[in-house]
């Protein structure tokens, strides 16, 4: 077999990869460029450049309120999901829980069940509880939606950790909490922080549950974007999309910094 025999295949592979690269990145690049447009419509290439749409974005109460609601929703729900998910992972991986595999599988359900079903179900139950249109209702929904990601990331970090370190601490007389606090937690900290970042970005981007549970008064960014997209929209939507994209890049960079060498373990 000569290397020449493979050349057409290599060429085909290279061409396809470039096509996929363009397909994945070009739309995002176009949105970022359009967000700096001076034209009042989504024209590409823009006739000129300006910051007017960012000006509109940060001076329109509907958008600034939505950003504030998103932050008020993202911070508590991602922290709650991380704390509850980390505690559950520690219990499930180390606690000899009967039926641990079944419980883990159940905790994964919010990922597998289509978002529309969860959203409709929460909306239906919330009606009787007066939780629709409240921040509390949104926070509960986002927490339960994002616990599975925390459990997946933190459990796998706990499984690769050496149990003997914890056993040694316990043998030397450390109470369980001290063992967790001084041995386990520092070892799994990168995974915990990484899952916090995942929960944050997922909450910021979440649309379907928010669409059902939010109201005109309590409306996160994703819902505000959605309602704009269904109506007449101008480059403000490209500006907010670019802000979301920048936020995603920052979170991604922070996550990569947390896990050197673990970059490829996502799938």
């Amino acid at each position, binding site marked *: 077999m000569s290397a020449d025999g493979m050349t057409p295949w290599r060429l085909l592979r290279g061409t396809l990869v470039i096509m996929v690269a363009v397909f994945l990145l070009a739309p995002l690049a176009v949105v970022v460029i359009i967000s700096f447009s001076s034209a009042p419509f989504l024209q*590409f290439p823009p006739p000129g450049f300006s910051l007017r749409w960012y000006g509109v974005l940060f001076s329109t109460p509907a958008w600034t309120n939505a950003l504030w609601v998103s932050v008020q929703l993202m911070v508590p729900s991602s922290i709650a999901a991380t704390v509850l998910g980390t*505690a559950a992972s*520690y*219990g499930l991986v180390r606690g000899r829980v009967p039926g641990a595999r079944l419980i883990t599988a159940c*905790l994964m359900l919010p990922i597998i069940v289509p978002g529309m079903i*969860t959203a409709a179900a929460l909306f239906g139950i919330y009606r009787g509880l007066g939780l629709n249109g409240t921040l509390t209702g949104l926070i*509960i929904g986002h927490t339960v939606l994002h616990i599975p990601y925390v459990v997946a990331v933190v459990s796998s970090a706990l499984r690769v950790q050496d149990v003997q370190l914890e056993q040694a601490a316990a043998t030397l007389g450390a109470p369980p909490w001290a063992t967790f606090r001084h041995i386990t937690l520092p070892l799994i900290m990168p995974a915990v922080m990484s899952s916090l970042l995942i929960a944050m970005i997922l909450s*910021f981007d979440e649309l379907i549950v928010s669409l059902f549970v939010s109201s005109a008064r309590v409306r996160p960014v994703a819902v505000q974007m959605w309602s704009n997209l269904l109506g007449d929209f101008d480059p403000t939507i490209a500006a907010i999309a670019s802000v979301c994209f920048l936020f995603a890049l920052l979170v991604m960079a922070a996550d990569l910094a947390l896990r050197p060498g673990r970059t490829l373990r996502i799938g």
Partner: protein
Amino acid sequence: MRAVDGRIWLILPAVSLLAVAFLVPVGWLLSRAFTFPEPGLQNFALLWERPVYMRVMMNTLIISAIVTPVTVLLAFPVAHLMAHGSARLRRWLVFLVLVPFWTSLLVRAFATAILLQRHGVINSFLIGFGLVEEPLPLLYNMTGLLAGCVQVLLPFVIFPLYSSMARIDPGYMRAAATLGAPPVRAFLRVYLPLTLPGLVTGATLVFISTLGYYIIPALLGGARQQMIAQLIQDQIAAFGNWGVAGALSLVLLAITGAMVALLHVTVGLKEIAR
């Protein structure tokens, strides 16, 4: 040390929240199928009888069945280059896939719409180069829907496929070549079967994700490409018809569950977790 230890209580908060804010609501929604507006199976009879419902359910299956192979075919060369290219190239490709992976689905769907719209980038390009006279209809139809789904779901195939490919011992392909197998034959008989765990995992993820999609068909598809999730939303928001919404949810969940079970049987969930 055999006894259950105190750490078991740590799972309680997460499990209680899951029960109260997920299992109970979803169970309640599904039970509406049998109880709303009155006890019986009339909602399932409606799904069967009304052509609209049947058409949307078939649509959803057909769209998922088209999106899955297209996504796998496009993901394959990327994962292959990632697994067998140079370390430098791998870093670039990982970056290429991670960026959209972390970016909001809504932002990506909107970006795709900008590209595909009547006077969008692709049409301007095609007209500019004299390839077409009139702008092509790329949005609010099957083309737009497929482009959006494939765009969003590519990373979900590339990553598992890559992790299967990276574990393949290059010695196998050399052995096949030494034993006289032409490259194509060695690829089909030796390489491809070894990628199957990643391929099946990725394909299943794409299939079940597409089944439940709402944002992409609503934003990029047309009225004729309506999917189950849109119908569920419609039934609740427009008609307050919790019975039909519950029945549709049950159908959607049953198909999703069957696919996950199939994946469990063929690949094993343990393998996926690796």
